[in-house]
């Protein structure tokens, strides 16, 4: 066994954010009220950020330890409690055992780095972005809690503990989406996210049960090779039964349903765009960079099971591909800048699933990583734009910002080239890797590859559209009017803390009109992320694929292979991106003033526009089916079953109780001696009963 001494530190990775959560939950608000808004908020935000960065530092230490570790399986086991080397039992009931333990391997540490690194940057960004908010402490409480649960999810050494993290991040997502709960729409969005996720969780939970039923354990890997993934690799279950493709099919599909819910794959994608109701840092952190990739992480973790079944792989690939192109079409038509990015995220997640489905889990994870860089960047950049425009999110009222907010523009530009897949930026490498493997899928490879390329072109198009509408077109808003009523409007990001916070960034010039660049606390993360978006892809180039090599110990070997050569793929990918960009450029350059391709009338009549603009009617269908019709059924049940039968039963019980109470009330005489007498009666009866039974036994 190869030792990893620093593995004992792994508890710190989760422990520090948890500490932050507890601290902020109990003292955050107190600190802000006691120390004053300016200082207090700086302390709270600074502490939250510092703890996440500290966690990142610990992750780096372990990462470097892991790099220097030798052997085939780079793996260490530790407790999630800091400085404890042995995992402590969390549940241990009659053979059902789950540890509170951490599995330290490349996959988990990679995710730790992403979560804490990107998370830290987003925390930093949020200290500026949320500066004017009255629930500042609550925000960072949730954020730290989210980081904690996300880390539990990725570090867990058994699938049940992973589920805890899984549900924990779901909870935090819900809390943060409806962070401004005073607005009903936000609460509804939070509910929607929560409920849709539950559908996926049912699949996950059933998957866990199936795993326990077949393997008899929930632990991924153990030091002595008794984990269920060990067993899956060996092809044998605990009881010696063969691990067949049928079993892999059942488990894999169930887990995939769970992954679909969390990673917003069709048809469970509907919650993610609505989740944009939360503050923009939340969108960046949860709904772009980290949580939504949990499905991919989970599938990667489960890869030894998934690869066993061709069917599962195909289902994953097809669903991923469909989601990718499906969401990309919707993204073409959206006007809300965050919605565009949200559907783009769904689409990119589809790519990741496509990679997993192709058996190239490493490629999928690579895209997770690069996507985390550039999508966080784009979201934060969008947030910066929104911030600059005093909470305007509609792209139709933007434009011409490239000169006004230069830093934001330049960083967004980096994100744009990265997501479009232009070499040599980050998105290019990962997307090409995925498409290359997808092309190698048995028998359907080329078809999938073609659709993937089309999606890439669409991606380039809608991103260019976004850039056009936001930065390059003419200015389409009244700059003077901006600050005057800027806080209101239709923005979900409306800040609710008018006036009582004289030192906040936002109110430093409370009624200054015009566009203004964001504060440094927001720009620094943007710049860092931009740099990562530019160069981040080089960790996984086909020439020197450090990334996938690093991940190899965590991933099952599959038969995935490139369907096209690198050069062909790169050329085709670049061409697809170029077509998308060129198309967008030429089309929008002609309409620089309006920034719109179609007039409102044209839009209304064009079914090809209306369908994606209305989200392909999926949301409406779900709404109609589940909310309206399901609601009607529920109301009918309520009226008939609940009100008459169930309530009737309850009322009957209550009535009978009341009747008896009325009877027995008379026994409550208030005379102490009467009570004593009844006690004696009871004693005598017990003695007689005992006597009777004794006599019976003696009679025998």
């Amino acid at each position, binding site marked *: 066994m190869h030792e990893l001494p620093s593995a004992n530190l792994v508890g710190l990775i989760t422990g520090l954010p948890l500490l932050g959560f507890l601290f902020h939950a109990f003292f955050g608000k107190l600190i802000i009220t006691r120390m004053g808004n300016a200082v207090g908020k700086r302390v709270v935000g600074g502490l939250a950020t510092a703890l996440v960065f500290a966690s990142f530092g610990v992750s780096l230490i372990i990462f470097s330890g892991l790099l220097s570790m030798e052997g085939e399986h780079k793996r260490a086991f530790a407790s999630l409690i800091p400085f404890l080397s042995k995992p402590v039992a969390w549940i241990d009931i009659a053979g059902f055992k789950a540890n509170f333990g951490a599995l330290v391997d490349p996959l988990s540490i990679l995710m730790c780095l992403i979560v804490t690194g990107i998370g830290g940057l987003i925390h930093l960004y949020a200290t500026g972005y949320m500066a004017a908010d009255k629930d500042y402490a609550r925000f960072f409480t949730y954020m730290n809690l989210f980081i904690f649960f996300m880390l539990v999810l990725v570090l867990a050494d058994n699938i049940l503990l992973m589920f805890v993290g899984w549900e924990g991040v779901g909870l935090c997502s819900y809390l943060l989406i409806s962070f401004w709960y005073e607005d009903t729409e936000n609460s509804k969005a939070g509910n929607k996210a929560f409920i849709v996720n539950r559908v996926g969780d049912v699949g996950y939970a059933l998957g866990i049960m199936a795993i326990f039923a077949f393997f008899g354990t929930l632990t991924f890997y153990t030091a002595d090779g008794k984990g269920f993934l060990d067993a899956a690799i060996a092809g044998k279950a605990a009881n010696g039964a063969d691990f067949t493709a049928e079993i892999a099919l059942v488990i894999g599909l169930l887990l995939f349903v769970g992954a679909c819910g969390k990673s917003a794959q069709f048809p469970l994608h509907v919650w993610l765009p609505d989740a944009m109701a939360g503050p923009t840092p939340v969108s960046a952190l949860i709904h772009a960079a980290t949580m939504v990739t949990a499905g991919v992480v989970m599938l990667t973790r489960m890869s030894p099971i998934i690869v066993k079944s061709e069917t599962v792989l195909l289902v994953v690939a097809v669903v991923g591909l469909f989601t990718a192109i499906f969401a990309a079409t919707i993204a073409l038509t959206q006007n809300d800048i965050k919605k565009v990015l949200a559907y783009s995220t769904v689409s990119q997640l589809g790519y990741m699933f496509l990679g997993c489905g192709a058996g190239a889990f490493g490629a999928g994870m690579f895209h997770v990583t690069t996507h985390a860089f550039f999508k966080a960047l784009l979201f934060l950049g969008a947030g910066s734009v929104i911030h600059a425009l005093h909470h305007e999110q509609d792209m139709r009222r933007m434009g011409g910002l490239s000169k006004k907010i230069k830093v934001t523009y330049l960083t967004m530009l980096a994100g744009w080239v990265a997501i479009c897949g232009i070499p040599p930026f980050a998105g290019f490498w990962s997307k090409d890797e995925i498409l290359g493997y997808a092309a190698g899928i048995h028998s359907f490879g080329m078809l999938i590859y073609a659709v993937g390329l089309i999606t890439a072109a669409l991606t380039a198009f809608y991103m260019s559209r976004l850039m056009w509408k936001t930065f390059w077109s003419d200015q389409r808003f009244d700059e003077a009017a901006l600050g005057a009523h800027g806080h209101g409007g239709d923005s979900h990001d409306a800040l609710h803390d008018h006036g009582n916070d004289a030192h906040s960034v936002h109110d430093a010039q409370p009624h200054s009109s015009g566009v203004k660049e964001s504060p440094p606390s927001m720009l620094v993360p943007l710049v860092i992320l931009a740099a990562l978006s530019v160069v981040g892809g080089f960790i996984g180039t086909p020439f020197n694929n450090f990334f996938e090599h690093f991940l190899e110990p965590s991933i099952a070997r599959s038969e995935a292979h490139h369907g096209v050569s690198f050069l062909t793929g790169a050329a085709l990918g670049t061409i697809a991106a170029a077509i998308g960009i060129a198309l967008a450029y030429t089309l929008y350059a002609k309409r620089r003033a309006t920034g719109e391709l179609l007039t409102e009338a044209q839009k209304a009549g064009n079914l090809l526009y209306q369908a994606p603009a209305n989200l392909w009617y999926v949301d409406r269908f779900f709404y109609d089916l589940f909310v309206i019709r399901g609601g009607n059924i529920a109301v009918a049940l309520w009226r008939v079953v609940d009100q008459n039968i169930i309530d009737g039963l309850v009322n009957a019980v209550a009535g009978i109780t009341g009747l008896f109470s009325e009877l027995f009330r008379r026994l*409550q*005489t*208030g*005379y*102490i*001696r009467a009570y*004593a*007498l009844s006690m*004696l009666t009871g004693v005598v009866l017990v003695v007689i009963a005992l006597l009777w039974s004794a006599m019976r036994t003696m009679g025998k």
Partner: protein
Amino acid sequence: MLGVPTEYFLVLSGILFTIGVIGVLIKRNPIVIFMCIELMLNAVNLTFIALGRHFVHVNGQMYVIFVMAVAAAEVAIGLGIIVALFRSKETINIDEVNLMKY
């Protein structure tokens, strides 16, 4: 009293206990009720000690020590309650103390 069988003590203890029970049930004076409770406790003590001798084990006597300590505390509190009761109601007739009925 070496020749007295343990059973005799148990019977005596049972009789004393029952007398105490009757007293608790039929007296209206809470002080006397208290005395009857003490009587019951002592009957139990007798059982403990008799059985302690029977089994040649010191535990029987240990229990009695605890019973006595508890009885002392109980009497202090109980009599305090009775005095407080008398102060507020000018009577201690237990049948007139029935406020808890409501």
